[in-house]
């Protein structure tokens, strides 16, 4: 096991009488791609929102690079090096593709807000550098010609790529991907798998990946954690976990098995 970048320790989250996540733990090592899977309603999305700080757990602790971040709001976690994508695609809908990326770079800017309001050279240069970087990243995703388009003018598949580019814009050390393959065509899923692998290999990111498409999980993940009814029921290498009878049972029936083998 490598040095952990993220440790979730016995996390519990209740909504009224429903326990969405029950004493679940998981660890993402530096440079690892860790999969988080489980049937619908198993608490994956709640877990992601807890990791990124959109929600706070009732019990348990989150460590990020060894520091306790349990009480930190999402924007502080982002500043510490965490980025995320959303299951239901989220972008700033009234802005251009480029502006969506530049916003993710604001937190890294050194010049003061006053300098930006007064249109000082320092702020201008920083803004120009952010735009240059945004265009480079868009080129990396083959989206350079769309930079100044309104983000809503792009197809859903392209918007998903913009979401990934936005995440990379903030140079995260941990990228939390919430079902990135949802709604993508099979060739695009292949491309996504390559891109995620390159994010890890070329940019050294650690990745927590929530995914329903098993091909993505099996191709990419070093380690898989399975949630069911908010509890961790299995973890280990993808091939082993997928064949685990407890996991098969959780997904109910043979459909899962077929998908796992197919």
């Amino acid at each position, binding site marked *: 096991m490598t040095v952990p970048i993220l440790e979730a320790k016995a996390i519990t989250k209740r909504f009224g009488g429903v326990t969405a996540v029950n004493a679940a733990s998981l660890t993402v090592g530096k440079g690892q791609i860790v999969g988080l899977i489980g049937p619908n309603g198993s608490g994956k999305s709640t877990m992601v929102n807890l990791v*990124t*700080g*959109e929600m706070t757990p009732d019990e348990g602790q989150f460590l990020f690079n060894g520091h306790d971040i349990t009480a930190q*709001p*999402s*924007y502080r976690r*982002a*500043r510490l090096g965490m*980025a*995320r994508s*959303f299951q239901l695609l*989220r*972008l*700033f*809908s*009234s*802005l251009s593709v480029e*502006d969506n990326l*530049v*916003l*993710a770079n*604001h*937190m890294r*800017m050194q010049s003061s*807000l006053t300098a*930006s*309001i*007064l*249109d000082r050279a320092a*702020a201008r240069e920083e*803004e120009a550098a952010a735009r240059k970087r945004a265009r480079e990243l868009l080129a990396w995703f083959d989206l350079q010609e769309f930079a100044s388009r309104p983000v809503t003018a792009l197809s859903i598949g392209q918007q998903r790529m913009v979401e990934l580019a*936005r995440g990379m814009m*903030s140079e995260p050390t941990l990228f939390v991907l919430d079902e990135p393959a949802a709604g993508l065509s099979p060739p695009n899923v292949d491309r996504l798998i390559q891109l995620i692998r390159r994010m890890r290999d070329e940019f050294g990111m650690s990745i927590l990946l929530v995914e329903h498409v098993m091909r993505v999980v099996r191709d990419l993940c070093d380690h898989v954690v399975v949630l069911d009814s908010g509890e961790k029921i299995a973890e280990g290498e993808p091939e082993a976990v997928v064949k685990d009878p407890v996991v098969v049972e959780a997904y109910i029936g043979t459909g899962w098995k077929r998908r796992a083998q197919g």
Partner: protein
Amino acid sequence: MKTLLAAIAAVALLAVAPFGLGGYETNVLMMVLFFVILAVGLDLVSGYCGQFSFATGAFYGVGAYTAAIMSRDLGTSIWLHLPAGAVVAGLFGLLLGIPALRLKGHFLAIVTIAFQTIVYLVISQWTSFTGGQVGLTMPNAGPVRIFGVTLFEFGSLRSYYWLTLAMTVICLIVAWRLIHSRLGREWVAIRDDETLAGAVGLDTTRGKLTAFVAYAALAGVAGVLTAHSLRGVTPDDFTIWISATVVAMMVVGGRGTFVGPIIGAAFLATLPEFLGKFAEYKMLIYGVLLVLAITLVPEGVVGRWRARTSR
């Protein structure tokens, strides 16, 4: 560049307008400028940052009463009142911004209405401090002196008009820079998706509070100008009707377009002058225009026009 030239031409035209207009028309034009400041200010917090406010009249009143009370108790001049009105109103804006951190939509709207009502009650009932229903009168703003030489004597309607025009230009430049800075882009991000704004590392608390402060401070400046120009303040100049009127100006003109609220203010503030004996029904007409705008052109006249031309 074309926009800049058009803006300079418009300001030049407004600057010479009093020479061709009577006192009444100059007064109407000055009222339009007060509303321009108010509507552009409201647009910062509502149009750009997406936080609804029905309390414009309250901040307008805070600015006006700051000037009137300072003038009465300290004998200070308008040059001190302008920054003081902006700061005091800005602090009240910060105060109203705090509930906005937790409340959204209708709930925030209700809090702003409550705030507006409280401010109105205080200025109309705290007679010993604010003069109560009668309000306060103000002396002439006095001469403008540099090294003991009188450059300019405040007193005529024109002098107040020109001051108001100059301050309007300054307020518009401030609003323009705010919108086109990093802060303005963060406001739009908060309006579009607050959760996402937090997830990409933006401090949404700072974003919302700065929007409320900027909005309130601009309304405060408009209040100081109004108090001096009208030589006094009365509570009934700062009611929720003012707030509603400014909302209508912003929405009809076009939220989040900068130019829209200016045009909306010019249109709605001059409209009663063309209505003759129906002028007393202006609130009814504003209401109808607001409903029509929201149902038919929610992006406002300027918003619609821009969408047309960019296609």
